[in-house]
């Protein structure tokens, strides 16, 4: 008995299941258990899954509080201002490093890049020694002008957090910017210059257009990172400056109010995920792998 029919049937059955694709299962299961499962539980708790019917009542309660609204506003203002600051500072520094080079310019660029490897709260702590009430700036001003009280207290306002975040996240903008500047043909600038274009015109008409993908990618990455930043805000510890991540920490760890913490965390995650989609969109549109981003 040698009929070809069963063979053909088993072949068609076997074809759709390519066993090599199953290799993806183990890392996916680990990530599922350790990342997605906890996220689902946060969502569940925020909807009141502990013993009662699911509803949005906790959202209605929490979202109406001035504390939450203030934190949301602070988070957005700090993130937008920091990202604009990072883009401006990063653009100016990358511009000089790339187009007005000097011996040691690469060393400076590398030094700024190592800031990526340092803990973010290092800058916050350093700032207290400079701008804090007993820091370098206030003590010098008090000694010089015989003031009884520290005159500068911007560190404990949103501006202190913004300046610290600009310091920490500018390297993330400079990486893609320096990469995109290195792709500009020097001859292009020299020709424009010899035809009489001044530096401002060259920046506006040649450099800036070439830098736009890097600026967009770096800027949206900065927005994401600054919305999620926790260490800087925690270490500066200004009473009036509360952001969403800090509020999640306060509610869960200081007040043991997990349900409120979960509601705020969900809002924070939704905000972060939309910024992340924006970032991926920009990178996909302009080819981020070429702009030096991971």
């Amino acid at each position: 008995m040698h009929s070809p029919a069963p063979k053909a049937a088993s072949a068609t059955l076997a074809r759709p299941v390519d066993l090599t694709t199953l290799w993806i299962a183990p890392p996916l299961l680990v990530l599922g258990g350790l990342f997605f499962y906890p996220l689902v539980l946060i969502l569940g708790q925020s909807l009141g899954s502990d013993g009662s019917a699911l509803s949005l009542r906790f959202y209605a309660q929490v979202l109406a509080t001035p504390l939450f609204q203030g934190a949301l506003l602070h988070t957005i203002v700090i993130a937008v201002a920091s990202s604009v600051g990072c883009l401006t500072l990063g653009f100016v520094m990358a511009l000089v490093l790339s187009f007005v080079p000097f011996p040691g310019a690469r060393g400076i660029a590398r030094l700024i890049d190592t800031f990526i490897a340092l803990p973010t709260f290092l800058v916050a702590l350093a700032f207290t020694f400079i701008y804090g009430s007993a820091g370098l700036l206030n003590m010098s001003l008090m000694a010089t002008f015989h003031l009884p009280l520290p005159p500068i207290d911007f560190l404990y306002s949103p501006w202190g957090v913004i300046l610290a975040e600009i310091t920490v996240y500018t390297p993330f903008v400079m990486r893609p910017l320096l990469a995109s500047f290195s792709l500009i043909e020097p001859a292009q600038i020299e020709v424009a210059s010899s035809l009489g274009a001044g530096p401002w015109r060259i920046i506006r008409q040649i450099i800036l257009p070439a830098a736009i993908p890097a600026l967009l990618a770096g800027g949206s990455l900065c927005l994401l990172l600054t919305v999620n930043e926790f260490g800087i805000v925690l270490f500066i510890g200004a009473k009036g400056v509360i952001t969403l991540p800090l509020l999640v920490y306060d509610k869960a760890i200081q007040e043991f109010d997990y349900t409120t913490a979960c509601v705020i965390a969900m809002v924070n995650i939704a905000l972060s995920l939309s910024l992340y989609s924006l970032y991926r969109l920009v990178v996909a549109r302009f080819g981020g792998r070429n702009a030096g981003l991971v």
Partner: protein
Amino acid sequence: MLVWSRTGRAGAWGVLALLFGVVYGVPLVMIALASIAGQWNGALPSHLSLGHYAEALDGDSAAQLRVSIVTGAVASAVAMFLGSWAALALRNLRPAPRRLFDMVFFLPSAVPSVSVGLGLLVAFSRQPLLLNGTTLIVIIAHFVLISAFTYGNVSAGLSRLPPEFELVAASLGARPGYRLRRVTLPLLTPYLIAAFSLSFAMSMGEVGATIMVYPPGWVTLPVGIFALTDRGEVFAGAALTMLLAITTLIVLLGLSRIPTKAVTRQG
């Protein structure tokens, strides 16, 4: 190139020096100075000492530094292993599911660290798995946070590998396991080291998720530093922050010196 006049160039460098100095130079100098400040009542410390470092090295802080290094090393090693596994396995998939899973593996980088910590706290304080209060939950938190970055580094490396090596090995009859061990992984080594370095550095500075989940017996150095500065011991905090930064940079420097076959073959 851009600016030809002598004064214009001097001006551009002046702006750079000012910006770099105010934003990066002064903070670095000040935290270094604070870490060796004996007494600091005026604008600058009146005398210097290494006392804060000496205290750091024989107190709780030495244990916290060790905790940070162990956590960083273990979390980074696991993340590197699973990240490479994921990146390699994704190559077998069709484009559509590949893009989907690529996004799935990147997703942890988008979620705020505090929320990752909160999730672990909520998930593992109940059945079926009670991990709250263990060392493992801290390592899990670090692994989740860095996993996307290690995956990203390895998959970027894979996409840059010249495909000929693997094709030649396959055509010469090398089995998949042998090909992976003798061709693909050696070529990937520089990217694996870069992935490990980045995730180790991130783990060493991590605060948000750790502060949510750490048990009293497994305090990482950043959490210890926060406890100190919160009590007003800012100089000890500065010394420990310097110690943390220096340790991180030494490890990164050491990792960057590891010779890789891929480099020696090209060069």
